């Protein structure tokens, strides 16, 4: 422990030490000297007394009045506490007093001759007890010391008092003052007005406080200004994106309508370009809008009950076409511990998965993408839900990994040029995940692939999940019966777009440019089935108009279903609209399917039905695939085909060589064998391998023929069976894998479909290539590509 010396102790310690030293030196040096001096003085006095005594008894001694002498001496001894013993010796040396004694020799004493007229008549010997003298002096000194100590104590108390009130307390107060200041209170009062050094410190402190207060006020002002500016920027961006989205809705809607008309091939291509570019632009706008809303804290997480597997299937469905077209393998693995029904914001989680997955697809040329979902930290009703998206794409450098979650950042500057995008997706994802109580992480090795992992807090759903509407948009709809629809929007393009959309299904459309007009229309017109109402309009906005309609006397008119069409779908506002009388809120840009489905909902009638002829075949296939609950695996023979072709091209420049004996010798099977024997074994295996490869090649050709012999598959199965066992022994691990895979496949597929044949052809081609080009071990770069191909099969 570190000793702490208080200021008081620092002031008094030297003082106290000095006093102790002084007192000690006085006590142990000066006082004994003093006692000695006193003893000497006392001795002188006793000598004088003895001399007086001698004189007084001289006559009695002379006249031999010894009884009187005795009486005198007895009395003297009794009276004097100092005088221990007196001996009286006469001139003949006889001890006269006390009776019958001798003078002790060892003891020091004083003596005095008894003289009468210069005649020596005897001698007095006196033994003085100086212990009494000593004791007396000691008592006196002890008292003196006591008084000095008492005096010092009083002095100490007075000095302490002064030090405490004059120094210590002001310093402590100053400390407290500093503490209060550090808490941000600059107006703390410090009541010490004495003009001394501490007063100076106080003045400096007060001055500092004033300066600090001023500086902090400036900083606060600057911070507030900066926050205000940032908020203004966010609002501006949000407003701008909103303003741009509205006309974009028109552009896309019109282009969509246009695509349904009769056009030349060239025109169709142009319209398709408009749609494609427009959707891209809309995506970018949506991202900027999200980012702005996040900056302005306007994003709210609204968990709902969700059927998790169904949710995953729907979220991934839209990516199947792009995966297929790029020839990328894809697996979905949902751990069994993930409960069926969970509560989370499906929109936002879907958005995050979509962001990460679209990046994965974007940056993966060959290989596969795997999605995993699992749960941890199960507690009562809550758990943490984890998602992992792993790809075999270009990867992200370590340097870039640290910034990819920052807004407007991409792995490198060239990325945006090559792949496009705003660089906002991951930033938005990170912030959404954080809002949902989780975190997002990235692991990546440049050139090998990337893995994104994120988690969210979720809980078991208490209510039944809402059926996720199939978001796959259907271009073609038909109506069971015509409806009378009032469309209210101040923006003409939107009016036209929506009305065209509705008229196509033979609905009667009435248009109104603002809320006031819409009321007039409702008042004048009977039998309106549904109203599609914009919110932001001049003169009277959608909310005001709805309130007036709802308060109409005619109950039929007052209860007309009203659907809000708005780009403003912040949850808080949606609640506000629903409370204001709207039946439903449909976001802009307008999605045809959503509008028609919503009309079905509010009228509680299946009026709008998607046209079955327009549903694409492949999408039904995918749906089938995705119905597998926990695991989705898309095996892509096509992708494998391309990888095999790629490796075939690369193999043309490769020199064929046998496997080295050095490498073989490392294998435990050959470790202790004679080298020449190993060479012999190897050569024999390679000859067999080559022959097998050629045989498989021959059989493949047979498979391609329309009338293929029945036993081809069996023959291939037989060859692969022996190969899968021997190849790994001679370090042909890739060959072993391929043979094993083909062998297993053939065993499981006895009656071959067309697709199976393609699969067998691809696998057997890998075997042929490996055996022909002697691709041993893992096979280096080409081997890697072939392994990727194998994984697709």
């Amino acid at each position, binding site marked *: 422990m570190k000793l702490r010396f208080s200021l008081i102790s620092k002031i008094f310690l030297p003082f106290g030490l000095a006093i102790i030293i002084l007192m000690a030196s006085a006590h142990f040096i000066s006082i004994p000297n003093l006692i000695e001096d006193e003893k000497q003085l006392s001795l002188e006095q006793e000598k004088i007394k003895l001399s007086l005594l001698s004189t007084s008894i001289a006559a009695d001694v002379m006249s*031999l*009045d010894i*009884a009187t002498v005795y009486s005198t001496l007895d009395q003297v001894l009794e009276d004097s506490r100092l005088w221990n013993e007196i001996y009286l010796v006469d001139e003949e040396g006889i001890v006269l007093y006390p*009776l019958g004694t001798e003078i002790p020799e060892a003891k020091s004493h004083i003596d005095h001759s008894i003289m009468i007229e210069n005649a020596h008549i005897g001698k007095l010997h006196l033994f003085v007890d100086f212990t009494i003298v000593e004791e007396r002096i000691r008592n006196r000194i002890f008292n003196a010391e006591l008084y000095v100590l008492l005096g010092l104590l009083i002095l100490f108390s007075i000095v302490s008092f002064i030090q405490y009130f004059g120094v210590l307390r002001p310093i402590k107060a100053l400390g407290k003052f500093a503490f209060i200041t550090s808490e941000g209170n600059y107006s703390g009062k410090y009541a010490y007005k004495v003009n001394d050094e501490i007063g100076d410190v106080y003045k400096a402190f007060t001055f500092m406080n004033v300066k600090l207060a001023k500086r902090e006020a400036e900083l606060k002002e600057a911070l507030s200004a900066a926050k205000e500016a940032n908020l203004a920027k966010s609002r501006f961006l949000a407003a701008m994106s909103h303003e741009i989205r509205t006309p974009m809705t028109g552009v896309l809607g019109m282009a969509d309508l246009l695509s349904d008309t009769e056009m030349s091939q060239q025109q169709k291509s142009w319209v398709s370009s408009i749609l494609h570019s427009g959707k891209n632009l809309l995506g970018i706008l949506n991202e900027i809008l999200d980012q702005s809303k996040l900056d302005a804290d306007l994003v709210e997480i609204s968990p709902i009950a969700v059927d998790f597997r169904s949710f995953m299937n729907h979220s991934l469905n839209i990516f199947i076409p792009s995966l297929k077209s790029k020839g990328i393998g894809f697996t979905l693995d949902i751990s069994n511990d993930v409960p069926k029904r969970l509560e989370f914001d499906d929109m936002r989680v879907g958005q995050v998965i979509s962001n990460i997955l679209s990046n994965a697809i974007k940056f993966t040329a060959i290989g596969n993408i795997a999605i995993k979902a699992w749960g941890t930290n199960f507690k009562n009703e809550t758990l943490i839900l984890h998602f992992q998206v792993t790809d075999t794409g270009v990867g992200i450098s370590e340097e870039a990994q640290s910034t990819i979650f920052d807004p407007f950042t991409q792995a490198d500057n060239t990325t945006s040029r090559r792949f496009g995008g705003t660089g906002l997706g991951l930033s938005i994802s990170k912030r959404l995940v954080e809002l949902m109580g989780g975190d997002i992480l990235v692991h990546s090795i440049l050139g090998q692939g990337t893995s994104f992992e994120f988690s969210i807090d979720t809980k078991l759903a208490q209510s039944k999940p809402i059926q996720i509407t199939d978001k796959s948009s259907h271009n073609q709809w038909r109506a069971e019966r015509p409806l009378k629809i009032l469309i209210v929007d101040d923006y003409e393009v939107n009016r036209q777009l929506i009305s065209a959309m509705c008229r196509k299904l033979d609905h009667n459309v009435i248009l109104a440019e603002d809320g006031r007009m819409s009321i007039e229309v409702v008042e004048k017109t009977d039998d309106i089935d549904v109203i599609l109402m914009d919110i932001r309009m001049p003169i009277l906005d959608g909310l005001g108009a709805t309130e007036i309609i709802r308060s109409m006397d005619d109950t039929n008119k007052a209860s007309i279903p009203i659907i809000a069409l708005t780009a403003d779908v912040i949850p808080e506002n949606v609640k506000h609209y629903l409370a204001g009388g709207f039946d439903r809120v449909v976001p802009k840009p307008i999605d045809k399917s959503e509008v028609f489905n919503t009309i079905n909902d509010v009228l509680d009638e299946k009026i709008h039905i998607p046209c079955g002829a327009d549903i694409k075949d492949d999408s039904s296939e995918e749906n089938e695939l995705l119905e597998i609950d926990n695991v989705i695996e898309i095996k892509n023979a096509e992708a494998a085909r391309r990888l095999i072709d790629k490796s075939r091209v690369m193999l043309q420049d490769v020199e064929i060589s046998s496997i080295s004996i050095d490498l073989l010798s490392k294998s435990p099977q050959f470790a202790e064998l004679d080298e020449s024997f190993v060479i012999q074994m190897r050569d024999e295996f390679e000859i067999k391998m080559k022959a097998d490869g050629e045989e498989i090649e021959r059989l493949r050709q047979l498979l391609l023929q329309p009338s293929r012999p029945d036993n081809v598959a069996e023959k291939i199965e037989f060859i692969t069976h022996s190969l899968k066992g021997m190849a790994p022994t001679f370090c042909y691990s890739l060959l072993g894998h391929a043979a094993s895979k083909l062998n297993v496949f053939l065993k499981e597929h006895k009656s071959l479909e067309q697709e199976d044949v393609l699969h067998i052809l691809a696998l057997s081609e890998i075997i042929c290539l490996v055996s022909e080009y002697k691709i041993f071990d893992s096979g280096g770069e080409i081997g890697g590509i072939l392994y990727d191909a194998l994984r697709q099969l």
Partner: protein
Amino acid sequence: MQCFLTKLLCLTLFFMSTPALAETFKIGIVPQFDARKIQKIWGPVIANLESRTGYDLEFIGSKDINEFEVQFTNGVFDIAYMNPYHLIVANQNQGYIPLVRDVGRQLYGVIVAKKDSPINDIGDLAGKKVAFPSPNALGAALIPRAEFENNFNIQVEPIYVKSHSSVYLNVVLGKVSAGGGVQKTLNQQPENIKNKLKIIYKTTKVSPHPIAVHPRLTEVSRQKLVEAILQMSETENGKKLLENIPIKKAGIAVMEDYHSLRNMGLEKFYIK
């Protein structure tokens, strides 16, 4: 004589100026001891006598025996306690007569020598130093010296050491060959002194100290005093006070009790 007359005059004047009841007598005590001791012994006795007789008894101090002798020779005291030889002298000079004495004992002198000394009888003392309290001490000096010369026919070198205690101490310390004392003072010595002494001779016994009065006192006064002393010795407290003097047993004293002294030839040794 003039002095006596003056005193008488004073006395007369005193009586005239004071109430008749308070008759005043001067009392003198032989200074055998120091004044304090005498005061201590006699103070209570005098007070007792005053209350019994109704007289005012005024104690007249004496510096030493010499002054005491001068005083009684001049008839200063109305009442006096004195040694037997003083009584002989005072009787001859002023006519003092004894009233009361201790009738329980006789006064005699003792001669002591150091126990381990070769001196065993008076004959051994011829020409030796012998200590006496004072020349006129009756039992301790006068009688022995008279008997040394009259009965033993020896001469000694007398050394006067002022008190009986000094006599015994000088003997014990070997300063003298022997010393003269009385049985009573010898008995009073501390053991360590008594142990070292031996008595080699006891003198002829005489009656002890009388309380004498001047012949000017009336018979009534004399009788009153005698009765007071005798009554006092009857009481327990009074007996104790008298024993301190020492009068163990108070009785009537007459001049005839002291006649033997007159024939001892003490005058030769008495120093005036």
